[in-house]
């Protein structure tokens, strides 16, 4: 059940640096950006250029190291494989698009601190390591490295009380999550004697009945910390408030970067425990959490009028669906490809949606509401087309990339859990379809009124949105190559 945890052949040491080059480039780039933000205080431009350059080089390094086989580095603490490289590319591309697309937003909100860029890069660094972590302490450190800059980033609009409240909420709850992770790690170390995933996996079968409950408890505690990060029921309460309070690009980064990295870590963590361990209680909990997230997210999203809250609840529903894929893969590891496809589609649609959201001029006052979209069709029709593509992809409408993700997940889930639960999932889809169609209806069918916000776009934003839209629509119409690429990546 865990082909992943067999130690791969060690690659020659001269390839180690090449394998780690994306992370190295990101680290060096982050330091350069940090220095630039200190010595050039009055303008954001040098730090912005440094950040974008770093991201581009890191992406090139990922593609350049594509031929290196799977390897465990640092004696099994970090894995570099097609899986991690896929994770890194998705994350780097999302962050690149959000930085380029939302730059106008920062100017408008008078966020002049160039700290923004190196904080984002630090979070990305943490996310990349999180996606490759195969060691409990590396997991913890990378999770914190991912989270701490984002706590700061959430609070960037310092004069908005909702923003400060969101930041405090996220910080306190995230801190508790980190502590719980360490607590669980201690139980796992106590029961297996190791913190490396490979060694833990090999020692589980030999564990006696007196150690198993301790191990399960530790596993569940670490799972809880990871579920908090992806906002799965019952740890989802923070998401709507934090999204609503955070600046739009930061909410976008949370939706794409944090979710992607956490899901890669979550998938790896769920594969660690054999199915049926101690009566399969873990499977039941995973299933329950997944289904409840999906149901809760879908039902509550229907009543949202604030767009960021809408995306938060939609993200909770999507998390539930993605966890269904993980649940299915616990019984049939070959279907984990469904999760990667869904995750990629979700990231592309959310990146686009948040860039579009940053074009709204109403943030300073009360956040982007549904009424702000009214009449957008008569003012900026191309924006409506882009919005529709992203919203329909999130709804799983045919000919968008999101449809193929949903199709693969439901297909694999049906084989494991039966058609009844598929009907539940599709019922939730109808609810979310309403929530996604309502903005489209408001955009195209309602006349603008004076209270609607203005929507101002930038060339960079247009370019980033266009790329995301082309990806969503293009892979929806022609999914073959991307889907085959992603399906080939086994854990």
């Amino acid at each position, binding site marked *: 059940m865990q082909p992943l945890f067999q130690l791969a052949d060690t690659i020659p040491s001269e390839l180690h640096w090449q394998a780690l080059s994306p992370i190295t480039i990101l680290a060096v780039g982050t330091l350069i950006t940090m220095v630039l933000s200190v010595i050039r205080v009055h303008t954001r431009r040098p730090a912005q250029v440094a950040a974008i350059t770093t991201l581009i080089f890191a992406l090139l390094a990922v593609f350049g190291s594509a031929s290196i086989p799977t390897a465990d580095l640092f004696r099994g603490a970090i894995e570099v494989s097609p899986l991690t490289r896929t994770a890194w590319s998705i994350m780097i591309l999302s962050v690149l698009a959000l930085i380029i697309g939302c730059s106008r937003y920062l100017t408008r909100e008078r966020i002049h601190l160039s700290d923004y860029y190196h904080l984002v890069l630090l979070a990305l660094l943490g996310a990349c390591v999180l996606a490759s972590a195969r060691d409990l302490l590396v997991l913890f450190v990378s999770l914190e490295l991912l989270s701490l800059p984002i706590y700061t980033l959430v609070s960037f609009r310092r004069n908005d009380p909702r923003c400060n409240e969101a930041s405090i909420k996220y910080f306190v709850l995230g801190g508790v999550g980190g502590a719980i992770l360490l607590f669980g790690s201690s139980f796992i170390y106590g029961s297996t004697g190791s913190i490396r995933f490979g060694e833990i996996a090999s020692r589980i079968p030999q564990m006696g009945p007196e150690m198993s409950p301790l191990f399960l408890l530790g596993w569940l505690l670490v799972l809880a910390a990871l579920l908090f990060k992806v906002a799965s029921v019952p740890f989802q309460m923070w998401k709507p408030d934090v999204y609503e309070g955070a600046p739009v690009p930061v909410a976008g980064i949370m939706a794409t970067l944090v979710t992607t990295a956490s899901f890669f870590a979550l998938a790896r963590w769920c594969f660690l425990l054999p199915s049926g361990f101690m009566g399969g209680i873990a499977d039941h909990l995973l299933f329950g959490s997944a289904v409840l997230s999906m149901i809760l997210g879908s039902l509550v999203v229907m009543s949202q009028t604030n767009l960021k809250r809408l995306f938060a609840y939609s993200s909770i529903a999507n998390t539930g669906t993605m966890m269904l894929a993980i649940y299915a893969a616990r019984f049939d590891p070959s279907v984990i490809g469904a999760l990667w496809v869904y995750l990629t589609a979700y990231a592309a649609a959310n990146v686009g949606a948040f860039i579009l959201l940053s074009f709204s001029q109403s943030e300073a006052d009360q956040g982007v509401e549904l009424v702000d979209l009214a009449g957008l069709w008569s003012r900026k029709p191309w924006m409506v087309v882009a919005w529709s593509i992203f919203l329909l992809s999130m709804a799983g*409408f*045919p000919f968008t990339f999101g449809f193929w993700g949903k199709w693969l997940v439901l297909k694999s889930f049906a*084989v494991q859990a039966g*058609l009844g639960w*598929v009907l539940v999932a599709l*019922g939730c889809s109808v609810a979310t*379809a309403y929530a996604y169609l309502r903005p489209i209806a408001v955009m*195209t069918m309602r006349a603008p009124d004076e209270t609607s916000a203005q929507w101002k776009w930038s060339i960079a934003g247009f370019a980033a949105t266009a790329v995301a839209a082309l990806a969503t629509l293009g892979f929806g119409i022609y*999914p073959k190559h991307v889907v085959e690429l992603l399906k080939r990546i086994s854990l």
Partner: protein
Amino acid sequence: MAGSSEILFLLFAPWVLGFALLLLPSRFQQYFANLAAVIYTISAGKNIASALYGHGSSQVSVDAWSSFGWAPSFVLDGVSAAFILMSGLIALVAISTGGGWVRTHAKLFTFCSFATLGLVNGAFLARDTLVFYLFFEAVLIPAFLMLGILGKPGKGTAALRFMLMSFAGSFAMLAAMIGLGWATFHLNGDFNLSIDAVAVAVQNLDPQLQFLLLGGFILAFAVKLPLAPFHSWLPDAYTLAPTGGTIWMSSVLSKLGAYGFVRIVLPIFPDALHRAQMPLMLLSALSVVYAALLAMKQTDAKRMLAYSSISHLGFVALGAFTAGTEGATGALFLALAHSFSSAGLFAAQSFATSSGKFLAGRGLRVITFLLLLAGVALPLSANFVGEFLVLKAAFGVSPLAASIAAVGVVLGAVYMLNFYRTRYYAEPSEGPSNGTSVLSPMQWLALVPCFVLLFYFGVQPSGLLNLLGGVLDAALVSAR
């Protein structure tokens, strides 16, 4: 592969034309769109003729969607051809009706029209439940936009209700499709959603499960067709949409439901359908009568025609549920005939009211009456041929359902003739008459094809009946 270029033409030409039209100025949209529709229909006819009479049928395998376990395909045969040509002519009718959109949103309307054309072509060519599903869902978006942007007040709610009810039905179908795929997975080791593979796999499922899966498909098509009690989205959607949009919805989109019943449900679920036949046929018959009764009470012309549409499509469903070649052929023939009769009637009533007062010159009155006779299924019209075949086949299976439906024919005559009497024979309303309501050439273009085709095929149905019957015979026999 034989005939692949013809299929690719049918799939992509409408999109090419739609995008090309966006480049032209709004003032000329209607003319050029009509020209494009005519050129497209003639080329489609030529392509189809060469494919069918040259190769027999054509098939093209879709490589782009082949990473899910099997290679989906598009197949062109007689039935698909008939529906595709019908859609091309309906494009002509819909665009010619004109209306407010010509001044305000011409580009949107013509683009949505060609998008709908492209997408329904994909649906009619699909030989694979997944491909059919993709196009079946996707075709909702142009209709949603036409209704929602160009409609009358109240359109937002109508549009959302239309979309959500269609989604709910389609998701039921998606669930059933996943179930079918799972059945093929158990049989062959991998998902395969082509109709032949699925039909084989379904035989091995236990009857209860077959019923459930059948139910999923029936739900989707019952919302689309529509069949009472799933019709509640229709009256508002048809009434509030611009006439061109209504024609697209009544003549083309609803036929997706009919096509789905006959080409998808019948070959895949012959046994389950035989067992569920009685209740389904009764439901269709009741739908006919229910909608006819409601139509009698309507005062708004468009709303009346909307309910009459539901009523006639109930006949189509009745024929499809007989699960026999004769009934299915009659159902599809009636579906094609109904497309033209409802398109013509919607167009005609919009021309009569377009000046604000109800004025109809002699020409319009004559042609409306003729179309109305077709709508009532008077002999010599194609609707009669279809309804007769349907009732004949239905009587053989369930005399009760057939009798109830036959009552619907009488009721149909009642509301149609009443509509004509109150509108076209009434005293003209006060106010200065503008002296004439002579139809413009464009408006004649909307009405004449409908009228000609209905009466030609009413008198000479054998060619088309043989075409439809031949294909259905082969498909249904192989399903047993």
